[in-house]
């Protein structure tokens, strides 16, 4: 055993971490987010244990909805990361394809990727647990559409970061969904959050989507206003993300990130 060699390998990763702010951020916020999310879930179930008793499948339905959001967002990021990993990034950006064409193509491809995962999951829940997500009725389509738009928005935001900061932003790509999960109120009502967190939650479309899903499944009430608010916020964030993507591309051209993309 050679201590120097082992120390050399340690240094290789230590230097990488200390030279990359996204990597440091990634190390810090993962544990914080996990503790926050599970803290709220535990708190909710210990206080309101009877909340879900008459609505079997609410948690599972919300899990499927959240997974669709997760797959859409990660799917979009993966398409971008694939080009970096395969060192094909430059080939893509010197092809006569417009940025808008790249975005639309990736948005469509991310949907196909998400559906490939979603459809079997939906089909499995019925025979395994006697639950059908189709119980959400016509609203299901609107909720999925809203989640799809938000997933794409997050994907575009992360891709903007990859353009701007390079592959060191990759870790953020994997964890954006977990960062937002506590505020998304996926498994518990928004009231369980502290007041300051509630304010943040109401700035996201997620809370309206998951509150609406619970409202339909538990109380049988369709609240059109919630769906509308989710779409309004989605439109706003999608617009911001697309602007940021164009801005990041412009900055990447100035900084040279497009030709230097690597570790």
């Amino acid at each position, binding site marked *: 055993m050679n201590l120097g060699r082992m120390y050399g390998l340690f240094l290789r990763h230590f230097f990488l971490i200390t030279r990359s702010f996204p990597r440091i951020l990634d190390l810090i916020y993962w544990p914080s987010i996990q503790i926050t999310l599970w803290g709220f879930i535990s708190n909710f179930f210990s206080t309101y244990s009877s909340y879900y008793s008459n609505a079997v499948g609410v948690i599972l339905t919300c899990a499927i909805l959240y997974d669709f959001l997760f797959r859409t967002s990660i799917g979009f990021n993966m398409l971008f990361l694939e080009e970096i990993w395969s060192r094909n990034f430059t080939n893509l950006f010197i092809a*006569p394809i417009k940025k808008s064409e790249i975005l639309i193509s990736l948005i469509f491809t991310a949907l196909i990727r998400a559906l490939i995962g979603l459809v079997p999951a939906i089909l499995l829940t019925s025979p395994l647990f006697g639950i059908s997500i189709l119980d959400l009725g016509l609203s299901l389509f609107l909720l999925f559409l809203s989640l799809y738009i938000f997933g794409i928005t997050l994907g575009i935001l992360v891709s903007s970061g990859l353009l701007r900061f390079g592959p060191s932003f990759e870790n953020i790509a994997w964890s954006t969904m977990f960062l937002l999960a506590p505020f998304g109120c996926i498994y518990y009502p928004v009231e369980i959050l502290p007041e300051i967190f509630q304010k943040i939650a109401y700035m996201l479309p997620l809370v309206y989507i998951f509150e609406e899903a619970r409202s339909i499944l538990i109380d049988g009430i369709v609240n059109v206003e919630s769906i509308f608010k989710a779409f309004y916020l989605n439109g706003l964030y999608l617009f911001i993300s697309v602007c940021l993507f164009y801005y990041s591309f412009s900055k990447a051209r100035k900084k040279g990130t497009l030709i230097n993309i690597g570790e």
Partner: protein
Amino acid sequence: MQNSIKVINLKKTYGAKEAVKNISFEIKENEIIGLLGPNGSGKTTTIGMILGLLKPTSGEILVNGLKIEQNPTEILQKINFISPYIELPKKLTVKQNLIVYGKLYSVKNLNQKIDYLVSKLRLENLLNRVTGELSSGQKNRISLAKAIINEPSVLLLDEPTASLDPEIGDFVRTFLENYKKEKKVSILLASHNMDEVTRLCSSIMMMKNGLIIDQGKPDDLIKKHGRKNLEEVFLKLVRN
């Protein structure tokens, strides 16, 4: 409009660092110009700006008479690039890669085009193989196929034969010579292989610290600097 690249007072700075300092040059139709210089001299930055990957701090680039900043899509349709530092998606087969890039470049009659590339570049046995499993020489030929799939009028080559064995290196050089004559393309060749540059290029630009410090025909430069070959000229200019 004739095929050409025209670079006028091109400059690129990163903060206080000047990577390229007001360089100007022109590559005419059916001409290969060599771009030589040590690592960090500004060659890749110059190529990056011509490809639109980098925004020039100042100056102009005209490809076939069009400004890249105002007409990126039109110019990129007629331009292509090879570098050993970029690759095609490894998990796709060679044919899938050629189909993808044929579509990206809106190539008409794509199947016939692929057949043409297969025969020109000896790809018969590679077409259905996974790109990532090919040798570097085979990958190089696939990159070459991708680079001419759109019949570019301007080709940018960054060390196109780096790490190739002499036989494949010679095949690539012969191919480029013939392709230039056949299609009358303007080619910018950045290379550290002096024999390659002497063989292919009608003229050479020497870059150092972001400046073109000398230029001319290979033989003229050798005579001017009183050296035996281009490598000695290169060493003299770089070390001075």
